[in-house]
């Protein structure tokens, strides 16, 4: 995405919900298209369904007929997970990590993007390049020094120790998506605001922040999902079961109860549901927001 924002001016970034362009409208879509599309959906959703349904079976069912449907609905696996305080503790950790990361990314990202999009100053291009270059520093490269740094800061085994790096690593994508949004706010609007006596900061808070909502929702979702699913960083930073986020929780649960496949599947499906719900609520926004960042 490094290149996307460079000269992109989104078509209608200000529309609260971007108008969905249709492809070539066909009077009737070939039934084959439906078949292919739903076949694809089946492939995409199949494994997820397998995990969810597997949690509703007994271990002996799974062993005897691995690819079968539940013959009796065993809610016991799910209820035992839902009754475990460890699961809720880890779900809470994941939620805190994802929510705080998202808020941090959005606040810092909008402020920095506003400067990059609308202030003219010497270091502007250099600053943009700095963030754009960040796309090429994935966490993998920095993980060991990061771990040592967090250790020296005394943040080992704390959520702050994963939240701060997550915010930092999400900034490049955020800024690259937001800058074109903010740049597309018409100059006239800013002039009108200043005639009405708003300072540039006033303009920022009263006009820019509300107008950038579609872009903000997009980057917010991306940051939330990335933080919710983050694995490598917590693996290095968190070492206590009660501090684990769900991905680590799933892994340790799976190795502890490896014989109890059904319960592992129940734990696994319960830990993916929040991200799925969150995502499906905002799916439209993702497509809309990326439209701003990807130039046609």
């Amino acid at each position, binding site marked *: *995405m*490094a*290149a*996307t*924002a*460079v*000269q992109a001016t989104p078509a209608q970034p200000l529309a609260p919900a971007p108008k969905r*362009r*249709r*492809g070539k*409208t066909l009077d009737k879509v070939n039934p084959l*298209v*439906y078949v292919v*599309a739903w076949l694809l*959906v089946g492939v*995409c959703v199949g*494994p997820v369904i397998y995990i969810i349904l597997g949690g509703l079976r007994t271990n002996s069912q799974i062993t005897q007929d691995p*690819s079968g449907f539940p013959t009796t609905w065993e809610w016991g696996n799910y209820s035992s997970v839902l009754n475990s305080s460890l699961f809720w503790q880890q779900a809470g950790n994941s939620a805190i990590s994802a929510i705080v990361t998202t808020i*941090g990314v959005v606040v810092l990202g909008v*402020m920095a993007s506003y*400067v*990059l999009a*609308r*202030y*003219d100053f010497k270091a502007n*291009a*250099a*600053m943009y390049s*700095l*963030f754009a270059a*960040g796309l*090429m*520093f*994935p966490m*993998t*490269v920095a*993980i*060991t020094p990061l771990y040592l*740094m967090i250790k020296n800061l005394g943040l080992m085994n704390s959520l702050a120790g994963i939240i701060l790096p997550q*915010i*930092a690593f999400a*900034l*490049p994508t955020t800024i690259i998506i937001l800058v074109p949004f903010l740049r597309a706010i018409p100059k006239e609007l800013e002039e009108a605001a*200043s005639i009405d*006596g708003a300072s540039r*900061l*006033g303009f920022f808070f009263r006009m820019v922040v509300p107008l950038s909502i579609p872009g903000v929702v997009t980057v917010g979702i991306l940051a939330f999902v990335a933080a*919710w*699913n983050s*694995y*490598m960083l917590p693996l290095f930073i968190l070492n206590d079961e009660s501090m684990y986020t769900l991905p680590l929780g*799933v892994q340790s649960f799976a190795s502890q109860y490896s014989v109890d496949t059904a319960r592992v*599947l129940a734990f*696994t499906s319960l830990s993916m549901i929040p991200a799925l719900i969150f*995502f499906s609520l905002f*799916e439209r926004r993702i*497509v809309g927001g*990326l439209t701003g960042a*990807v*130039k046609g």
Partner: protein
Amino acid sequence: MSNSQGGNALLRTSTPGDGSAVGDGAVTAPSPARRPRRRGDWRKRAEIALLAGPAIVVFIAFVIFPVVMAAYYGFFKWKGYGVPTDFVGLENYLTILQDSTFIDALSHNGFIVVMSLVMQGPAAVILALLLNRKMRGRGLIRVLIFVPYVVSEVIVGTGWSLMLQTTGAINDLFGKIGLEGWAVDWLSDPDVAIWSLMIIITWKYIGFAVILFLAGLQSIPEELHEAAAIDGASYWQTQRSITLPLLGPTLRIWAFLSIIGSLQLFDLVYIIWGQYVSATAGTSTMATYMVLNGRNAGNYGFGNAVAVVLFIISLVIALTYQRFVLRRDTQGAITEGKK
């Protein structure tokens, strides 16, 4: 952009007493209209520092600084305690480049890079074209296709491991439909394991490509399609000569992201093949090599050297790509700043 300031400096005066209407009273200067220019400059600097400062500080502290430190630590033999003192120069790097397990890992990464592009690109374009039409349930289909992308790597790894076991659901299913011959050892047969990994990667990440391409398709002006229709072009002619070329920039960006992601692949392999079998199953990557031989073995200096090698490889590929492929789309966002 160029005259966001100065050009309208005269306009940007706040009338006294409107501090409340500005949202941040502290920063509004109720100064007379002809404020001296320098004062305005100073204010602009303060605003830039205030708005962009926090992001820059966090970014430099947690991204740039660790990357620089990785380069520094890479020259030491170091167990991670205290200050590294055992300077060994390029020894770590020589060790890495002569280690056949690293070369294996590197070649696996190369395979994953190429196969990701080949397996996901064409399929994702076709799917995006398919889903860009008016059809019943389109919104639902889009959401469902994106589901694998939202599910975390750990869950993907755990679920697929269970399904791909020799006694798992996939082989069982093949047995049911009379294809026992297709039932293989998906995870530990060195000839098969990397293909299993590719299937999982494709399954997980193709949704992202489809969504990105859909976004690209939506920014193509409708008029072009109408014009083509008037000229009597068939649906496929239109797609070939209008849609695909206009989707070019999006495709090139997706390919860039895909390449970088494939080079850095860690989570899925580490979760599915654990710490020991990824080498024997032929699915190790540079990142799993780094974690196993660096942190897990307590050799922090060595691990950082691997990170640097990984980074240099990524950087060279990224810059080359920028220079030769993205050149037409951008004036080198990464190398030369923005236009």
